[in-house]
């Protein structure tokens, strides 16, 4: 199981993804005429004998990808998820699973996280120790005191400063993408491969009779008495509004062709990630392909 790449990598480092570079691997690509400088042991002697002039075997070099974990570490991520756990824990969990999959696959894992004030970038590196450090970063950055999150800032950072093709795994919450963010996403989608994992926000209108605690909005510090939220009229209006919001989010991602999956709690993080990876892989069949489809392994 690994993060599938639709495109070939452009890097020179080894890995299991299809690469535009030719090199040594088990994947045979072509035979071509020997030119001085080629390794002698690359000469396909049987073909040379048949052909009459030296031919060299070419293989598709196996390269590795850089996986960038793009995590919203604003204050909003310190809030509760729909399961009642902290969204932070779920984010760390999800980023950990993604990072681990990438690590095991031999990919480099980098991190870009931040809020509306700052964006922090940790360049991709291999190794579980590095991943551990990234997860610690995420964990320490998400507090109720940190500035509010704004994923558009991080998207802008990626578009502006990060060169090369990346596999971007975004872990964010149920914000509503505005036009600006959507434009950024479109550009991001064009340059990188984007997987989007949404952590569902807490249900604001609890069912009547449940001993729900009062809520506090992390942005405005406005208290929301659960008693008011239990009012049947308010609940009905909330259900309609939430349905509309979810539909708009889904439409946005569908329009952009970004694989999106949501998770409510840490129990279904694995399921969600699996579904997300599958969705992303199957997008090869549904969306227009640039270049030839990547090789799949795993």
């Amino acid at each position, binding site marked *: 199981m690994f993060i599938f790449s639709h495109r070939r990598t452009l890097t020179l480092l080894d890995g299991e993804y299809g690469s535009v570079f030719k090199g040594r691997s088990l994947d045979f690509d072509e035979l071509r005429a020997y030119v001085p400088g080629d390794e002698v042991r690359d000469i396909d002697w049987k073909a040379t004998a048949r052909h009459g002039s030296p031919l060299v075997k070419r293989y598709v070099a196996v390269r590795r990808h850089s996986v960038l974990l793009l995590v919203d570490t604003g204050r909003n991520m310190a809030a509760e998820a729909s399961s009642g756990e902290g969204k932070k824990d779920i984010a760390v969990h999800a980023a950990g699973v993604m990072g681990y999959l990438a690590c095991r696959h031999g990919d480099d894992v980098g991190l870009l996280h931040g809020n509306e004030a700052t964006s922090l970038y940790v360049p991709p590196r291999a190794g579980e120790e590095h991943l551990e450090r990234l997860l610690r970063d995420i964990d320490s950055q998400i507090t*109720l005191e940190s500035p509010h999150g704004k994923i558009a800032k991080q998207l802008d950072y990626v578009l502006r400063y990060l060169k090369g093709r990346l596999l971007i795994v975004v872990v964010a919450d149920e914000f509503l993408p505005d036009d600006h963010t959507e434009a950024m996403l479109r550009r991001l989608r064009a340059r990188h491969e984007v997987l989007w994992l949404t952590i569902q926000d807490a249900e604001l209108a609890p069912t009547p009779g449940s001993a729900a605690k009062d809520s*506090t909005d*992390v942005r405005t510090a406005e208290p*929301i008495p659960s008693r008011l939220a239990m*009012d049947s009229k308010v609940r009905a209006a909330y259900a309609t509004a939430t349905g509309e919001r979810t539909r708009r989010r889904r439409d946005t991602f569908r329009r952009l062709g970004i694989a999106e999956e949501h998770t409510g709690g840490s129990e279904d993080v694995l399921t969600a990630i699996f579904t997300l990876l599958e969705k992303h892989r199957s997008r090869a069949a549904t969306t227009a392909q640039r270049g030839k489809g990547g090789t799949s392994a795993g």
Partner: protein
Amino acid sequence: MELSYWWILPLTAITVVFAAWLHRRRKPRPTRAVAYGERLTGLPEYQQALRRHRLRLALAVLLGAVFLAATATAAARPTQRSTEQPEIRNRDIVLCLDVSGSMTGTDAAIAGVFQELAKEFDGERIGMVIFDSSSVHVFPLTDDYEYAAEQLKLAKEALDDGAGSFFDGTWNGEGSSLIGDGLASCVQSFPDTDPSGDQGTAKRSRSVVLATDNFLSGEPIFTLDEAVALAATKNVKVHALNPGDVDYGGRTDQPGAQLRAAAERTGGSYYKLDSPEAVPGIVREVQATEATSYRAAPQAIVTDTPAWPLGIALLAGAGMLVLGWRLEP
């Protein structure tokens, strides 16, 4: 409006401040942090519910404050201090009834009126003397109104009958309607005035309601004039009711005129009765003149007036109950 325990109010204020301080120090109730609260708070339905909720809370706070203020005020014991000249009701009244045959109708009416009046008495003393040729104390001056009313009832019944053991002892002397003797007995039934003139004991007003037609027959020991003089020395006012005033002309030796002169000499009044039905009106008139003429020294009266604060507290409490019920989810 004064407060007996005014220090309760600052104490309440201190308690309220202390409670507010405790409330501020109290750890806030654990709430869950949520993001994008505008998903809910942006809804007009929620805004409306919130406004309603706020209004109720504000009302509850207001009612609580009113309740606290009202109960604190009630606890501080509001009193009304007024200087008042209370009508003294320490009158002594002796009914002096001539029970000669012609008088019984009037006597019954008087007894009836006083029987009613005795129910309203508070502080007054009433006594009753009947006389014909000799006088009988039916009951002495008493403030046992129940007893007096009972006696007056019996007297009224007997007087309506006009015969019976009630009249026993009124014919022991010679003649009949010995008014001077009768009046003297009535006057004697008041205790002696304190010669030292001590205001405390001598302050009771004294009046005799004398019902007679002043048709004297026989030799009284006291003439009317002597009896009136005796009454004057004892500060007794004589109010005379005469059902049988049949004087001709303005001569002063006629019975009615004599009686009028006698009554007025004591500072009392004289009424000519045309029928027993007029008695109640006259008696009340006498009562009224007595009432207005006696007033005590100005007196500071302190009365508790807890009705207002307690009433407000009750309303506020009821309001809070209703609100509390509405605020429950």
